[in-house]
């Protein structure tokens, strides 16, 4: 809300600067978001004309100008690049004082005498428009005081009023708040009831719940014209455009005392009556903003005999607006239920200064007084004669008394303010304060509907006595141990593990476009969607973190990165019945060289499926008995984003917990990653979080020497390494500690269709050293089993 300090001072004498006032307002809970100075904060600056402009003999960037101020012509040195002969400018004569008490005197600049200065707007404390001097344009006579062109000096503050304080949405309201803070009295409000014997138009209120008070006063024989200068300048100071005297008066009263009013052209009201009713289906309103609104059924409207003429509390209609040809004015002063005003404003997406106040809650006691005040001003400015108002009133004015004690308020604040101080701070804002410190009754005034509980009063006391005067206290520690949730504990383990494995963490948005899902061969069916998406890029809640990660990889590659290793911990969503499932997942992508070794690039391996497998194995460590299966052979639901053959799905006790593999070639192509060989993985973080979170226990290991035997096996290319491991394990050799695959070879020396696997067997016992014979026997068992079951032979 824009607040003019001059205007504020009409209600409360204040000897504060704008900066000091801002500090006070902030302490009371009102942020000041802006400050604008109006009028001149300088003297001795007149309108001048640049007669000639020459280059300065001794300086490249300076010009020597002759300026005519109507009386004399003087030489002025100017540094602005935009100065030119023929311009009308603001000329500070010697003796002028510019903002910041900057005195202008004649002085030599690089050897040329400069008598005064050609000013820029910012040098005059005005909002800047262009770089360089202020070019004023033709109009004002030479020698005119520039200050006089700017209107009276004023400070205008942009004050942010929180939504619980509609009572401060006016100059008087804010002055009242400051008066309470300073323990001062507001100046009495001038103007009073206009008595008359004439009668206004009849008013019917069909829903007194929605409109507890409606007053309408008829003023006849008005001459609507321009507003007087004082009124115009007030409105202009707070950024409003004057329209005509009657409309300006209603706007003025709104910003003066906070009560929205509306003026109708009474001659344009069909049937000469006012009905406050609900809108009916199909009704429309051409509003003051020149737009036609289709009114949904059931909004509160002001209607004449035929149709709505205003959306109650929001905006009037253009057809019944007061213009300069209006002769009879019907002045509305009403109180609308905040919820009604808000509903109307939201349903029509129409907002106004009035709706802003009504929906926050205007003062139910104010309409009559405000309308009287406006009526008096109309009579004074536009003439005419007023009738007595027609009113429909069912409004309840008295608030609810709050019973509390100083001790209770101090408890809420954690403060130790004295009884006197607390009561003295409540007194100015109470309609009635009775009882004692130990048990008082506080009756709020009609404009403070936000005050209903002891906590509300505690805040008032805190504000007026200062939050700064409330101590810093540490509530004693609870004996409960601070704990992480299992999911958070797991996600921390996962995050630091993946970062240690060289993956960087990404954060992607949860909402995706259908297009990017389609690029990942994922469907938006069965996914929750935003009812009001920001754009098509933000339409569907994701079922996988991978679309985001693929985008990240592509983004980085396109910007020169040669590798991309990312992971994300986040939620995936799905509709289940009438509910939305959301699950924590972790996913990642690997692509490009696994080492940052450009000068050894030829030797540096690139991320392969097996790097991804290592990562997922790490994630699943201690999670339970993992069963791996090819995605194409797994009984668990498939994932179309992955390559069906070169993807493994891990299940634990039948639950799919992780997937790792190649990207499906078509997905890779969509992200322009087909040459990169991207490896992706995805795991169910919540499942992992369910695992035992035990502290690692140390287990003794044998210090006895072990025996190693290397075997070079030749077997059919179609057999998988896993079969070799399985066969060896099935031999159930007590002494076999480890099986290590250390080479996979095809080619020269190995028959076509065969592959050579080199494995190292490690034997050892905890309590004694094995003999050579024992080891050899064990090896023979293994070789025999492999030969029998896999047709493996030893490579000679």
């Amino acid at each position, binding site marked *: 809300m824009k607040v003019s300090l001059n205007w504020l001072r009409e209600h409360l004498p204040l000897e504060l600067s704008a900066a000091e006032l801002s500090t006070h307002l902030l302490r009371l809970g009102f942020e000041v978001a802006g400050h604008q100075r109006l009028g001149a904060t300088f003297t001795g600056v007149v309108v001048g004309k640049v007669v000639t402009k020459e280059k300065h003999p001794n300086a490249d960037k300076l010009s020597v100008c002759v300026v005519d101020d109507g009386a004399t012509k003087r030489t002025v040195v100017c540094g602005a690049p935009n100065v030119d002969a023929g311009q009308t400018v603001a000329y500070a004569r010697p003796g002028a004082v510019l903002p910041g008490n900057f005195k202008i005197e004649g002085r030599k600049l690089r050897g040329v005498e400069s008598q005064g200065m050609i000013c820029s707007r910012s040098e005059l404390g005005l909002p800047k428009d262009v770089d360089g001097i202020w070019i004023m344009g033709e109009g004002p006579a030479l020698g005119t005081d520039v200050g006089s062109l700017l209107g009276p000096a004023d400070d205008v503050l942009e004050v942010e009023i929180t939504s619980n304080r509609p009572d401060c949405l006016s100059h008087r309201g804010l002055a009242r708040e400051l008066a309470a803070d300073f323990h001062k009295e507001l100046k009495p409000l001038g103007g009073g009831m206009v008595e008359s014997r004439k009668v206004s138009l009849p008013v019917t209120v069909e829903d007194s719940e929605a409109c507890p008070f409606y007053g309408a006063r008829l003023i006849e024989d008005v001459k609507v014209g321009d507003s007087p200068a004082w009124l115009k300048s007030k409105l202009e100071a707070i950024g409003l455009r004057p329209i005509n005297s009657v409309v300006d008066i209603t706007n003025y009263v709104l910003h003066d005392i906070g009560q929205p009013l509306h003026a109708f052209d009474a001659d344009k009201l069909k049937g000469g009556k006012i009905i406050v009713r609900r809108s009916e289906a199909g009704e429309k309103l051409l509003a003051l903003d020149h737009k036609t609104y289709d009114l949904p059924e059931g909004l509160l409207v002001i209607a004449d005999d035929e149709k709505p003429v205003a959306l109650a509390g929001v905006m009037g209609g253009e057809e019944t607006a007061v213009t300069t040809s209006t002769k009879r004015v019907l002045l509305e002063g009403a109180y609308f239920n905040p919820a009604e005003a808000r509903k109307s404003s939201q349903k029509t997406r129409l907002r106004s200064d009035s709706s802003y106040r009504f929906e926050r809650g205007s003062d139910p006691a104010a309409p009559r007084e405000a309308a009287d005040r406006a009526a008096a001003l109309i009579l004074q400015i536009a003439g005419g004669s007023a009738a007595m108002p027609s009113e429909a009133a069912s409004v309840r004015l008295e608030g609810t008394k709050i019973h509390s004690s100083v001790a209770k308020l101090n408890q809420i604040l*954690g403060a130790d303010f004295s009884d006197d101080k607390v009561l003295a701070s409540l007194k100015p804002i109470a309609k009635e304060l009775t009882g004692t410190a130990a048990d008082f009754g506080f009756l709020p005034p009609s404009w403070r509907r936000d005050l209903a509980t002891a906590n509300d009063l505690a805040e008032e006391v805190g504000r007026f006595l200062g*939050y700064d005067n*409330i101590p810093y*206290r540490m*509530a004693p520690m609870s004996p409960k141990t601070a704990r992480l949730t299992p999911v958070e504990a797991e996600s921390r383990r996962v995050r630091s593990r993946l970062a240690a494995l060289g993956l960087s963490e990404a954060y992607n948005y949860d909402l995706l476009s259908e297009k990017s899902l389609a690029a990942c061969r994922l469907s938006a069916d069965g996914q929750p969607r935003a009812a009001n998406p920001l754009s098509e890029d933000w339409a569907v809640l994701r079922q996988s973190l991978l679309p985001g990660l693929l985008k990240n990889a592509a983004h980085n590659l396109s910007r020169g990165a040669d590798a991309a290793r990312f992971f994300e911990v986040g939620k995936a*969503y799905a509709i289940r019945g009438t509910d939305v499932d959301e699950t924590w997942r972790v996913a990642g992508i690997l692509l490009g060289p696994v080492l940052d070794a450009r000068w050894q690039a030829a030797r540096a391996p690139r991320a392969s499926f097996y790097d991804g497998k290592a990562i997922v194995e790490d994630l699943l460590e201690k999670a339970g008995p993992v069963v791996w299966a090819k995605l194409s052979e797994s009984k668990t639901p498939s994932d179309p984003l992955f390559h069906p053959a070169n993807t493994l799905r891990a299940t634990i006790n039948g639950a799919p917990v992780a997937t790792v593999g190649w990207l499906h070639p078509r997905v890779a192509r969509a992200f322009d990653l087909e040459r990169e060989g991207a490896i992706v993985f995805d795991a169910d973080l919540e499942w992992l979080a369910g695992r035992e979170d035990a502290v690692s226990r140390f287990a003794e290991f044998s210090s006895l020497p072990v025996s190693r035997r290397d075997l070079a096996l030749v077997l059919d290319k179609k057999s998988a390494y896993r079969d070799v491991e399985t066969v060896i394990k099935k031999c159930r050799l007590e002494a076999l500690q480890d099986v290590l695959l250390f080479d996979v070879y095809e080619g020269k020396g190995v028959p076509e269709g065969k592959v050579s696997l080199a494995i190292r067997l490690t034997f050892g016992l905890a309590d004694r050293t094995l003999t050579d014979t024992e080891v050899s026997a064990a090896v023979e068992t293994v070789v025999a089993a492999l030969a029998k079951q896999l047709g493996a032979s030893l490579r000679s």
Partner: protein
Amino acid sequence: MTRADWEKSYARTESALRSAGVEKTADLPTLEEVRVRFLGRKSELTELLKSLKDLSIEDKRDLGPKAQGLKASFEAALEARKSVLEESGDAAALAADAIDLSLPAIRPPKGRLHPLTTTLHEIARIFQLMGYSWAEGPFVEDEKHNFSALNIPDDHPARDSHDTFYLQGLPYLLRTHTSTVQIRTMETQRPPLRVVCPGRVFRHEQIDATHSAVFHQVEGLVVDENIGLADLKGHLQTFLQKLLGASTKTRFRPSYFPFTEPSTEVDVKCFFCPGTGCPSCKHTGWIEILGAGVVNPVVFKAIGYDEKKWSGFAFGIGVERVAMLLHGVRDLRDFYTNDIRFLKQFDESLT
């Protein structure tokens, strides 16, 4: 052998040893030759030592140490020369080993945690030390938990500041603040409570440098007997000083949230300028960092806590805002683009 003969042969041996020039031996093989010549089984020195046995007891006692001393000093000289020759031999071999040490290091890939993760962890860590447990709630919420249970009824103007994503065909929305978790926590736990609820929130806002439709908050909630605004001030000042430094100055000013009363917004003295104003503090000298307040008893009442017995305070911190301040990030979108040139600048990785 007489003593005189022995002494003669001693003098001869001594002079031979001296003229052998151990210190000048050129290389290890020559040195070995010298050693064999003088210490070998048939060598002069060995013979001299052997011949001691032919002398009288007195002479033996007299001359024995002399002979041993000669041997020892010769051996010492040999040893010294040997180590000199070995050293220089090594140096040559080592010089031949030289590789170009100025070639770039070969790095295993370095993973980083996202700056929002580290910031969020840091915030939560401080509160954890103050006894706050971690609590979570769903991102997809209903009206009740996001609004009405927090004293924000349907027609409340405070909803204006919560531009909300609603879900199509479902009675749900994406939570607009983590305050929902206050309600979720109180629904399942009895006081006393001390929790932080960090997480992602959603606002229906066009994305630009200072607005994001997705961002993160850390909500805090304390419920106990006799909690007042003073406790809120104490806890939050302690938190801010631990987060931003012990000399951090705080300012608590009144504000309004429907679910807290009294409410406050907390500013810290700008740490980019000496309070004189700069773009970071919008020329006010102060930076707004969190919102907080004493839990409005109507919230307790709605949840079924006895509002006469329990009181509490709650607060909410914007994680992006803190991360931007700590790291000097100016554009919110940078947090969600995942450009490695951005991510790699943050090395709080494994904290």
